């Protein structure tokens, strides 16, 4: 056929030559394909880390929490440091305390010698300028929780916060997970719109926008003005956003990255690959009750969830151990209470043992012998710990005649809109175990809480909250609140579950806990 063999052979030869040329050019660097070169051989190494969640912005005044805090932690230092074990330590402030006994005045003394990456010293006036911008101009996540009225300074190193209401959680709110404690340079406020991709903090590193691609890759170089140069362990830090868990695990296995955010689907692979697998409880899952008011959200019928007996029945009807085991295996622990930094009561952990018969009896006593339909919206983007949990619970609720009608959502804004829209009785909810009880009260249980939308109020909880916020030793009130929410079944908690981080063998310093659920890259170093 037209000398086709000859043609084919010629073509093969040409193809082989092209392939060889390509191979010569591209395989020259084989055996060192990774950029994760954190080995300590004299010069400071490069750290490359992989995060699953996209970082929306590097501006701490705007950014959300969780993993989004990690790149920001590289470039900004917080006023107060939340240690991985949950204790407070010095950050840009070396000491702090409430003034008086009402928890409405709070003062911080700043570290001497700290400077922003533009060389400006971190003084009281600089901190005030940034906090004014962050709190009063941007009005980010922290606004509702902090209750800040005004800020003033005393001398060069003292900042005073004046609150509009007692708040016992100010030290916690000024730590890294809340972002508000990260302080930027006053110079940066003038060009705040550029802070999405660049940085001007008093942290160990500075973002290099020319080498970064917002939302995908962030490159950081050491900040020459950082007050403790011995803490700068890397010559460069690269943060890659890798949304596919499979790609993430392969990237760290190939040595291309040194630290990776993991998940339950890749943990066994990471373990068998010989990586360091670091886990700790970091979040909890619950059915968040949005409506405990007298009427259902559409106002047409009596609301079953107004009855504590019904809510207790819904707690008794869940075999938490089985649900946790089937979804998380060894990486989850059944729970009966809101995960919190300061309100956890170990003795309440088995308050609602699995007892469908008792659940049915409670429903009958409350006037719902045939059950009812409960509409919930789900935080579906969280995958394994979202819809599957609700579906497993729906299965168990069928045994007591309760139909759980689940509405999935495709994005976080959609979920938020559904939750705040007032049309659901409940929602699947995933929260951090490291938030204070007062925060959960403000959102879920306060008379005007954003997720308590239909006029429900528990005066006892309100009283405990008021006392706790005004107390210098509020611990007793938070545990009392936790006990009250469990006995009244204000929520339907299901389990606490682990976060996963993987590191190559040459990286150390990665630590986190239920009290501080996001690790700080600023504390990692190469062995």
């Amino acid at each position: 056929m037209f000398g086709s063999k000859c043609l084919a052979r010629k073509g093969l030869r040409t193809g082989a030559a092209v392939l060889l040329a390509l191979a010569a050019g591209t395989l020259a660097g084989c055996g060192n394909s990774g950029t994760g070169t954190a080995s300590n051989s004299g010069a400071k190494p490069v750290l490359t880390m992989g995060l699953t969640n996209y970082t929306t912005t590097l501006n701490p005044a705007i950014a959300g929490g969780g993993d989004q805090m990690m790149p920001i932690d590289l470039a900004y230092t917080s006023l107060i440091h939340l240690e991985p074990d949950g204790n407070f330590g010095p950050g840009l402030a070396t000491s702090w305390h409430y003034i008086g006994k009402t928890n409405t005045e709070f003062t911080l003394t700043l570290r001497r010698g700290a400077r922003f990456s533009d060389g400006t010293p971190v003084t009281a006036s600089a901190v005030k300028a940034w906090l004014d911008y962050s709190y009063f101009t941007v009005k980010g996540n922290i606004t509702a929780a902090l209750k800040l009225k005004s800020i003033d300074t005393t001398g060069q190193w003292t900042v005073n916060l004046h609150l509009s209401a007692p708040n016992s959680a100010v030290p916690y709110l000024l730590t890294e997970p809340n972002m508000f404690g990260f302080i930027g340079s006053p110079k940066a406020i003038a060009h705040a719109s550029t802070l999405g991709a660049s940085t001007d903090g008093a942290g160990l590193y500075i973002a290099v926008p020319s080498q970064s691609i917002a939302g995908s890759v962030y490159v950081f170089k050491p900040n020459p003005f950082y007050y403790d140069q011995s803490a700068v362990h890397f010559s460069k830090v690269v943060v890659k956003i890798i949304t596919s868990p499979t790609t993430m695990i392969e990237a760290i296995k190939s040595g291309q990255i040194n630290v990776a955010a993991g998940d339950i689907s890749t943990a066994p692979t990471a373990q068998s690959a010989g990586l360091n697998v670091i886990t700790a409880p970091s979040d909890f899952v619950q059915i968040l009750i949005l409506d405990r008011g007298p009427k259902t959200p559409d106002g047409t019928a009596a609301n079953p969830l107004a009855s504590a007996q019904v809510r207790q029945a819904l707690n008794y009807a869940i075999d938490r151990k089985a649900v946790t085991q089937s979804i998380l295996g060894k990486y989850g622990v059944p729970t009966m209470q809101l995960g919190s930094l300061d309100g956890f009561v170990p003795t309440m952990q088995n308050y609602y043992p699995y007892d469908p018969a008792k659940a049915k009896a409670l429903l009958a006593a409350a006037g719902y012998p045939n059950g009812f339909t409960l509409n919930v919206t789900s935080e579906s983007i969280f995958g394994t710990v979202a819809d599957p949990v609700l579906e497993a619970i729906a299965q168990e609720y069928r045994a007591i005649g309760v139909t759980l009608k689940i509405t999935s959502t495709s994005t976080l804004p959609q979920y938020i809109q559904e939750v705040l829209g007032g049309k659901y009785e409940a929602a699947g909810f995933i929260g951090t175990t490291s938030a204070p009880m007062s925060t959960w009260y403000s959102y879920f249980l306060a008379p005007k809480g954003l997720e308590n939308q239909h006029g429900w109020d528990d005066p006892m909880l309100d009283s405990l909250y008021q006392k706790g916020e005004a107390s210098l030793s509020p611990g007793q009130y938070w545990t009392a609140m936790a006990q009250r929410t469990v006995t009244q079944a204000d929520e339907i908690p299901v389990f606490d579950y682990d976060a996963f981080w993987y590191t190559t063998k040459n990286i150390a310093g990665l630590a986190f806990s239920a009290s501080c659920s996001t690790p700080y890259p600023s504390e990692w170093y190469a062995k």
Partner: protein
Amino acid sequence: MNPVLRVMARRCVMAVPLLFVVSALTFLLVSLTPGNAAQEILGTSATPAEYAAFNRALGLNLPLYEQYWDWLRHALTGNLGQSIFTGQPVVQAIGQRLPVTLSLLVGALAVSAVIGVGLGVFSALRGGAGGRAADVLALIGFSLPAFWVGAELIVIFAVWLNWFPATGYVSVSDSPAGWLRSLILPVAALALYGIASLAKQTREAMLDVLASEHIRMARVNGISPVSIVFRHALRNASIRVVTVLGLLAVGLLGGTVLVENVFALPGLGSLMVTAATQHDLPVVAGMVVYFTVIVVAINLLVDVAYVWLNPRVRVR
């Protein structure tokens, strides 16, 4: 007027209303999807007043047609606005990522064209076992999804053999060899479908042309087999191949989203997904403009190729 210039002018004129329609539709569709940027940024802890203040500050409280008009006014001067989240100019954000997606797209098209057309010609000429083997290879290419192929390529070539990086992109200006290495696996994953598609279409087109009257005449007239295959048969078959190549280019543009995700490449696809999820309207609108321009450019190239390949089109 030169026929090529005439085709180009016609396409460019048609692109203008297309850009208007597509950008307006984008605004409409984004506004219809649940959620908004304020909810993404402020989360669940903000009050309704804070949401309202945020929306006012960004002009998101204005009627949709006003938002669109405002965007359009600036777009006509080349200013596509700023990302709501990063504050980065949209043109800059897209400019950073365009080389990644274009490298992927052009690379995959080139590989698809060279290997796909080669396989198709080989299969048409050889028939028999060689031809069937080429057909089987094409069939495999059709049936394997790019994201799965990508994941397997990472395991084999990045983890086991450590030949290529598992993730990331190296700019050609930083290192041409690094650029090539960072692209080989994603291009291979993306090109597989294109290879299969082009191989099949080329084979069929070649068989049709080879069986035609004028090829038989050429053979009788003693024209060399090489000349018959490449100058006459392949050129005639190319019209169909170019059509497929054009469609393939548009399809691959969509495919880059998945491949960029698998290889964590900072391209336009991942930006589009992120921006759409966050309701970052300026970025979404800017991206749509760029994607539309790329699709128009592809169609333009296909039309020009038609003119070049087919004398009848040139005469018309």
